Each structure stands twice: as structure tokens, then as C-alpha cells.
């Protein structure tokens, strides 16, 4: 075997004999590639790109959800189902599958076939497709690694490096593949930090879609608060978790034109894998929560946890049901919150709580699988501390602002 130096020497010799560098013309593409990574020009460009991302997401999801699917579900599906459902309106079967007989929209009915299907197909499907479509175009064009370079310095402060942007952005689609993507980070420490902060703070596409529908005016602030938490927790973890955070030399691919076939294929793969996991969980979630309601467990829990919820977090005790659902599906939990009466500020707090409180069960399994028992318990400890402190902090902010 050669050693490192001998090998490079050999490569040098080979290269000298086989490679000729022609006169390198600086093309417009190269010059554009350059200015997208220089901070002075790159950051404004990144703002424009992210704005485009968000604007597309909102318009696309709004077109399908508000334009057609809400109408379909509220004006046709719900009345029809309330009419033809075989079991009586007082029966528990009706309660579980159709929900509230007086409801006039699918958000409030909360039956498996009403709210359950509406959340998955009416709200989350368009959001997920919109999100992945833009993400895949950004991925294939080669812009994503440039974003990584831009954000490299910031992420170094939390013990990560630029490429942590890849799992972070993936996570905005779904936390599950994002946990796997953490493997591109070098050390155990980095992977632990990344998994923990993304599982806690990054809302998934399903949740974003439903937040957009339920709290359109405040969703920006919620995201901002979560993003701040992402950096704060990352910063703390990078100080207390033992291990290394090595530098990484980023390698930037050149810009490419995304191909239709690859974009289409990836969109299909991601959307369908999302759905096979999402649909059973959402439907199951509705059943479980309705059964818990019927058996009185929710009331019992609400009374028991009420002082903690209203005292520490400042949210109504009814949110306990949503918090239970949140363990199964975040989107469903936010949908359930929308039916509870509370102030705008309490709403923001509960949405934040639902986000940072236990990740959904699928992510949970990934944390265990990727992190091992030790890593999993570590993430869990960070999570519990975060829920109490960071969730409580929001209540404190409202008190200081005089709106709690």
C-alpha cells in the first residue's frame, strides 16, 4: 500500500500526462454561481428564493384547499354523510366516524370520516405536494448546497455546519426522512444535536399546511419563535454534549437544469411514502381521541392537568386532547385546536406547544432507530426541558405584554 503522499505524487504524474486545461472561459452561469454564495449578494438572493418558496406554497395549497376541497368536504361530503350514515346520531359509532351531528364544517365535526379525511386529503395533500415540488426543484438545480455555504457560519455556532441545512429543510417536509438524512453529518455529537433540534422545533409540511389554514395571520410569528428555539437549543446542546464538531469543506456542485422525469419521480416517491404513513395514523388518531372522549378519559386528564396547562402555559385545559393527538399526528392536533375557544395569544401558545411537545410517533421511532437508546433518552430529556421552559417562556412573554 502507498501512503498518502506517495499516492498524491502518483496522481500528480498521471494528471500531468493526461489532463490539459484549456483556456477557461468564465461564463455567465459561473458568475451567477459565484454571486449566489457571496454573503453580500447571496443573502438577498436567498431571501428572494425563500420568499418564492413560501409564496408558491401558499398559493398552490390555497388553490386546492380553499378553492375546491373545503367546498367539497363542507358542502357535499359532510351533509351527505350526516344524512346517510346508518347508525343513529346518538350512537357512539356516529360519534367516532362522523362526529358532532350539528357541525357544519369538517374542522369541527371531528369524526374519522369527516375531519380525518379532510385533514389528510383536503389540507395536507396539497401542502405536501407544493412543498416537495419546490424543494425538489431547488435540490436538483443545485441551489441547496449554496444555501448551505451561506448559512455555514451561523450553523457553526450551534456545533453544526452548512450541510445541516439539508436535514433541516427536508424536515420541513417530514421529520422522518430528515432523521435519516442526519447521517451526512460527521460525528455522533452533530447527529444527536441535529436530530434533537429538528424533531423538536421544525414543523413538518403537514403541520405547516394546517397552520396556514387555522392561524393564517400568526403563522409567521410561530415559525419565527420555533426557529429561534432551534438555534437556542442547538447552541446549548453544542456546549453541553461531549464530542467533536469538525469543520467540513463544502463541495458545491454546478447549477443544472432539473429534469422533468427526475422531479416527477421524486415527487411521486416522497408524496406516496408520506401518505402511506400519514393516512393510517390520522384515522387512528381520530378514533383514539374519540374513544378517549367517550370514555371520559379526556375530561379526567383535562381536570388533572388543567392547573399545569392554565397555570404554567396559560392555555385552556381543553387543549389536553390536542396534546394527546399530537403524539400521533401534529396536523390533526392543530386542526383540533382550531375548534377550541381561546384568545389569539393562547392559540399561538398552544400551536407552539403542539409543535415542540413530543414529536409524532413516526419521528419517535426514527429517533430511537438512529440514535440508539442512549441518544434517544438524551433527545427525550432535551425535549421535556424544552417544552416546560420554552413553552412557559411564551406565557411569560404574553404576561409581560399584558395580553395573557
Amino acid at each position, binding site marked *: 500500500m502507498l501512503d498518502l503522499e506517495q499516492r498524491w505524487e502518483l496522481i500528480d504524474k498521471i494528471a500531468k500526462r493526461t489532463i490539459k486545461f484549456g483556456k477557461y472561459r*468564465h*461564463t*455567465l452561469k*459561473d*458568475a*451567477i454561481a*459565484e*454571486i*449566489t454564495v457571496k454573503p453580500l*449578494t447571496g443573502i*438577498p*438572493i436567498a*431571501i*428572494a*428564493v425563500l*420568499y*418564492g418558496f413560501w*409564496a*408558491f406554497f*401558499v*398559493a*398552490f395549497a*390555497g*388553490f386546492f384547499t*380553499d*378553492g*375546491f376541497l373545503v*367546498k367539497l368536504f363542507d358542502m357535499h361530503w359532510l351533509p351527505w354523510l350526516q344524512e346517510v350514515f346508518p347508525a343513529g346520531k346518538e350512537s357512539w359509532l356516529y360519534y367516532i366516524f362522523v362526529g358532532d351531528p350539528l357541525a357544519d364544517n369538517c374542522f369541527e365535526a371531528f369524526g374519522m370520516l369527516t375531519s380525518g379525511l379532510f385533514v389528510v386529503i383536503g389540507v395536507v395533500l396539497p401542502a405536501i405536494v407544493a412543498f416537495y415540488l419546490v424543494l425538489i426543484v431547488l435540490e436538483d438545480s443545485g441551489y441547496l448546497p449554496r444555501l448551505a455555504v451561506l448559512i455555514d457560519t451561523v450553523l457553526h455556532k450551534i456545533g453544526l455546519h452548512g450541510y445541516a441545512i439539508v436535514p433541516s429543510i427536508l424536515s420541513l417536509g417530514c421529520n422522518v426522512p430528515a432523521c435519516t438524512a442526519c447521517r451526512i453529518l460527521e460525528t455522533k455529537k452533530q447527529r444527536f444535536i441535529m436530530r434533537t433540534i429538528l424533531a423538536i422545533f421544525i414543523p413538518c409540511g403537514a403541520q405547516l399546511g394546517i397552520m396556514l389554514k387555522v392561524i393564517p395571520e400568526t403563522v409567521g410569528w410561530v415559525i419565527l419563535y420555533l426557529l429561534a428555539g432551534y438555534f437556542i437549543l442547538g447552541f446549548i446542546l453544542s456546549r453541553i454534549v461531549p464530542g467533536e464538531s469538525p469543520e467540513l469543506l463544502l463541495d458545491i456542485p454546478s447549477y443544472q437544469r432539473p429534469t422533468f422525469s427526475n422531479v416527477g419521480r421524486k415527487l411521486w416517491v416522497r408524496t406516496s411514502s408520506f401518505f402511506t404513513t400519514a393516512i393510517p395514523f390520522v384515522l387512528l388518531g381520530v378514533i383514539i381521541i374519540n374513544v378517549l372522549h367517550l370514555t371520559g378519559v379526556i375530561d379526567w386528564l383535562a381536570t388533572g392537568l388543567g392547573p399545569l396547562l392554565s397555570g404554567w402555559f396559560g392555555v385552556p385545559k381543553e387543549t389536553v386532547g390536542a396534546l394527546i393527538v399530537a403524539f400521533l399526528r401534529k396536523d390533526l392536533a392543530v386542526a383540533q385546536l382550531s375548534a377550541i375557544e381561546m384568545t389569539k395569544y393562547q392559540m399561538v401558545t398552544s400551536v407552539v406547544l403542539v409543535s415542540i411537545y413530543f414529536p409524532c410517533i413516526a419521528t419517535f421511532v426514527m429517533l430511537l432507530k438512529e440514535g440508539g437508546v442512549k441518544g434517544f433518552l438524551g433527545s427525550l430529556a432535551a425535549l421535556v426541558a424544552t417544552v416546560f421552559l420554552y413553552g412557559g417562556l411564551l406565557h411569560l412573554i404574553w404576561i409581560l405584554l399584558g395580553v395573557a
Partner: protein
Amino acid sequence: MKNKFASVYFSIFGLIVLSLGIAELIIGIAGRSFTWGILEISGEFSLWKGIILFFVGFFYLSSVKNLNEIHQLAKNVMASIMLWIIAGMQIFAMITESIPGGEEEGWINTWEGFLSAYSPPYIPALILLPFSLVTVYYVYAREK
């Protein structure tokens, strides 16, 4: 000659973009709205659109000196692309809003409703859009 024309053109255009950006930014922060002729500054994200427009104007202005040089041109092209992102998304939003019917109406919008989605007033980026296409012409002419 052509260069000089382009430089003068983008200096003026850049200044207009820059000032509209600042206006949109201020109105966005204040949370107000403003209409003047076919120009309208209002709605969500005015703040962000304003920030982006501000940089678009800034990029145009900083590109005019020696525009023919590839790095300068890249700044100019990128400024136009940023403008197209805002305007393009606005057009996309108009299209998606124009097609479905209103709350209590049918599935598809009425013809009047459809057309009214495209009628003025427009946001600044949309009005600026046609003038930014000069970049395309310039790049194309330069290649030749």
C-alpha cells in the same frame, strides 16, 4: 453605444426599483396600504417584498458600471431573476385565485370574477416586470 444606453437605462430603472422597494418596506412595517393609479402597495408580505425590491434596485445600480463585464452582468441578471420571482409568484397567485368560484357559488368562477382577478391595481414588482425584460435582450444581444 449599446453599453452606454444599457447603463443609463438600468441606472434610472434601478433608482425607481430602489425607491419603490423602500416605499413598500415602510408601508409594510406600518401595516398600511396605499393605492395610486394602477399601483397598489398592500397585503401580506409587503415587508418582505419591499426588502427584496430594495436589493433588486441596489443590484441594478451596482451593476451599471462596466455592465459588459461578466460579473457585473451576473448581478444585473440576478436582480432581474429576483424581480421575476416576486412578479411570477404574484401572477401565479392571481391565476390560482381566479379559477375557483366564490364561497357560496359554483366550482368554477364566473367570467366577470375570473377577469376581475387580473384587473389593476398591481403590486410594484408586477408593474416593474416588463421593464426588467431588457436584461434578457441585453444578454441575448451580448452573446451574439
